[in-house]
């Protein structure tokens, strides 16, 4: 079919469709593959009709949310129609007493949280790109943030979904109630599948009440082994923090800037006075939410543990400062806690057991220093999650990429003893060298079969996922 015929078909399926300019399409290229059309359906039915048409005519569909993670994964083998979910952006229902909501997937995380917050609740999921990123993009990549320590990941929070399958059929999984074991738990399968099995169009979510109070306690410790030990002590205590982070020296230093605030320590804009570590110090950050009384008690207990663990500086942040510092930390590594005037950063994540975090910090620290490349690290420690960011002034040179490739091999070898190491934002040349996803551990056959059965024509995001699925 010619591009004109495709535009005409899309025009008949999607209200308000206007063919995009050549420049606009070029800007939507996925890892260098330029699409022929971009379309934004205004309803689930219109989305389904678009996918059905693409499937029948053999076009590859690239679902898109806020566009913050379009470079995740391998380059697609085909990319014909970019299907944007930006118009599917409503909170369809929110029942506070049930602690549930039904939401269209194209809503940005920021708008979702603002909407839920009006009625005293929130979705306890705080991934990077929380401003422009959409719920659908977060679910497709199973992105998570600090709150996973206490509330889990998207797989723990989505209770039902409406999914547009590769042939355009709309199916439902789960339900609208917080407890439900009817049928297979297909929600889990779709979440984190990078849109390769179906497009999440609408989801039912389990919510939490907004806490009355929140506070951060930051302690600085000179050595990573001692910082990890400190975090283990908090885990094993009665504190039960809502999050527990360990930050590398570079990240700690930027965090110290956030804590001081734009007015450098002025109380009026939420800045907090106080020294927060020296050059080579790590930081342990514990977050407490709840009522004032429990937050007070936890902060006191936590400070005692920090001091006993050898923390040099301990700073407590609440009120406006708490929200500002939290926003900075949440944005890491997607923009928060990064130095100014740097070129495009390379980001990765690892999932290991908590006692595997220290080794990854050491490897990344040694490796980046050897390469003279900037490196920031933040670990959601109790979940064994480590986010890495590598940067330099200007773009990476060929020799940098070579060095990073060898460092990533080491990080992957160390991670895959128990867990995973995934390259997220990175130049195509680097991804080609080290791969993106790592090992599917003997389950490749099952995953390929799932893809083949759910998307026999390879309509959805072909080639971008694990093992080139």
């Amino acid at each position, binding site marked *: 079919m010619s591009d004109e015929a495709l535009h005409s078909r899309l025009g008949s399926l999607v209200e308000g469709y206007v063919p995009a300019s050549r420049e606009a399409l070029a800007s939507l290229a996925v890892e260098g593959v330029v699409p022929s059309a971009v379309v934004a359906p205004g309803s689930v039915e219109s989305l389904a009709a678009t996918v059905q048409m693409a499937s029948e005519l053999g076009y590859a569909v690239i679902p898109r949310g806020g566009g913050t993670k379009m470079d995740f994964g391998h380059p697609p083998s085909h990319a014909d129609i970019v299907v944007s979910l930006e118009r599917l952006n409503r909170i369809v229902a929110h029942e506070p*007493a049930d602690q549930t909501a039904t939401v269209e997937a194209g809503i940005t995380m920021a708008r979702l949280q603002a909407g839920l917050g009006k009625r005293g609740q929130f979705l306890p999921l705080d991934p990077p790109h929380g401003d422009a990123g959409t719920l659908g993009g977060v679910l497709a990549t199973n992105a998570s943030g600090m709150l996973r320590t206490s509330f889990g990941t998207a797989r723990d929070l989505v209770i039902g979904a409406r999914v547009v399958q590769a042939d355009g059929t709309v199916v439902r999984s789960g339900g609208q109630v917080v407890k439900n074991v009817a049928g297979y738990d297909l929600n889990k399968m779709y979440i984190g599948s990078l849109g390769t099995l179906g497009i999440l169009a609408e989801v039912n979510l389990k919510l939490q009440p907004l806490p009355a109070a929140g506070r951060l306690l930051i302690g600085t410790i000179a050595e990573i082994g001692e910082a990890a030990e400190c975090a283990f002590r908090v885990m094993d205590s009665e504190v039960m923090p809502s999050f527990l982070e360990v930050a590398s020296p570079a990240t700690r230093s930027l965090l110290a800037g956030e804590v001081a605030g734009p007015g450098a320590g002025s109380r009026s804009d939420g800045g907090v006075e106080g020294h927060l570590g020296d050059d080579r110090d790590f930081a342990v950050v514990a977050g407490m939410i709840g*009522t004032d009384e429990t937050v007070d008690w936890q902060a006191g207990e936590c400070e005692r543990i920090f001091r006993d663990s050898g923390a040099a500086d301990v700073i407590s942040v609440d009120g406006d400062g708490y929200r500002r510092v939290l926003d900075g930390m949440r944005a890491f590594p997607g923009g928060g806690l990064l130095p100014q005037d740097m070129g495009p950063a390379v980001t990765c994540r690892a999932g290991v057991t908590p006692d595997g975090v220290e080794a990854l910090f050491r490897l990344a620290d040694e490796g980046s220093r050897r390469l003279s490349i900037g490196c920031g690290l933040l670990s959601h420690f109790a979940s064994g999650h480590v986010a890495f960011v590598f940067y330099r002034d200007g773009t990476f040179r060929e020799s940098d990429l070579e060095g990073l490739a060898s460092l990533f091999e080491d990080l992957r070898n160390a991670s895959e003893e128990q867990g995973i190491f995934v390259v997220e934002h990175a130049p195509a040349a680097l991804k080609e060298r080290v791969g993106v996803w790592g090992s599917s551990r003997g389950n490749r056959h099952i995953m390929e079969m799932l893809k083949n059965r759910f998307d026999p024509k390879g309509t959805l995001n072909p080639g971008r996922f694990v093992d080139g699925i």
Partner: protein
Amino acid sequence: MNKDQLVERLADVLGRENVIDAPDQLIVYECDGLTIDRNAPHAVVYPTTTEDVAAVVRILHEARIPFVARGAGTGLSGGSLPPDGGVMIALTKMNRIVEVDFRNQRALVEAGVVNLHLSKETGKQGYHFVPDPSSQYACTIGGNIAENSGGPHTLKYGVTTNHTLGVEVVLPDGQVTWFGGKAEDAVGYDLRGLMIGSEGMLGIVTRAWVKLTRLPQAWRTFLVVFDQVEDASRAVASVVGRGIVPSALEMIDKVAIGAIEAAYHFGFPLDAEAVLIIELEGHEAGLDTQAEAVAEVCRENRASDIRTAEDEKERALLWMSRKRAFGAMGRLSPSYYVQDGVVPRTKIPDIMRVIQETAGKYDLLIGNVFHAGDGNIHPCIAYDDRDEEQARKTVEASNEILRACVDLGGSITGEHGIGYEKVDLMPLIFNEADIEAMETVKAVFDEENLSNPGKMFPTNRTCIGCGTAELKYTNRQAALL
């Protein structure tokens, strides 16, 4: 391969002492906690290792003989009802806690480990395994994983899937693999998430890494008494609507109170129409403030009395009475039939009215003991299984209640599973395309349909969408009589 040859081959692998096939010994394995449906397996085997399970499954796969895994047999939906001509793989001898890693707060257990044993083993160090089904003193973690079990305390902490990091699986062709593992976030599709709650239909879980959770510092447990079921029901939604997340919020009605009191003499008020058990957990600091907020909500909803469990002993007795409530219901009639519907918690007043009306309409005694905070009802219908008319009415009343749950925006099962019992109710909540998606998954894992066949999916496909889905009664008469 005939039956004798099969038994011989299984005995070669496991030893004769780990294979039983004598009809009188098989009677125990004819059913699980859903005694209304029965079917004897060809044989029952007791593997002791993952390799044993894999060897058995390879034999069965080669001979195309269906099989079903079984834990303690406490399931309530016929999930481990043996398939015709099938072999039952009992995992009760795989009951080792392989490794407890307190530092990383996780444990590796075999599928046959009893749920409560893990919490007892780790309790001394201040940890527990959160899912706490009422049968936890007997049920196995493998069974919890198959059914994605809940329990009273899952209101705050989540169900089995939220506490399971990885599962070792013997696939239906006998291959062994891990989905997930000791660490979180395995690469690729979430096969771990798919496996949990798949009712033994995608393979057999032999070992699992599960999360251990720090025991709370403090708790407050209340028994709140109401003169009207309606008031108690409203109090449930009000507590949660006020932004309070109790660790457990259970309701017991008058019929069940009578049965429990007769059995365990806890001191429940016999003249109350309903009581709520509300438990708060957390830090000592601030807990009394929260407790006062809960008490206020209860008083606003016309609670006639609020009692507090004085010590750990009283609290334990209260929970024991609650968790063994179904057993106590046995005092009221020769048999009882428990349902497991769910409604949004704001609809509890509505569903309680439906249950009352249904009891009246069919002239049946229905007791209610359930996870009100989750909206997960457990109407327990007392009946005499020797009375065919009453048995028929029991199933019909059950149907009617589950239909009402769906009409109120809920589901037909919150924690017991579809099993065999509710296969023909699936069309109430899923259409043909929804069910096909699930069958696609089944076919990927188990093309030959050997692993626990006959469960979950509706048998009468012409019925889909026609709105006449109901629990099969006719097939059951033989078993009931």
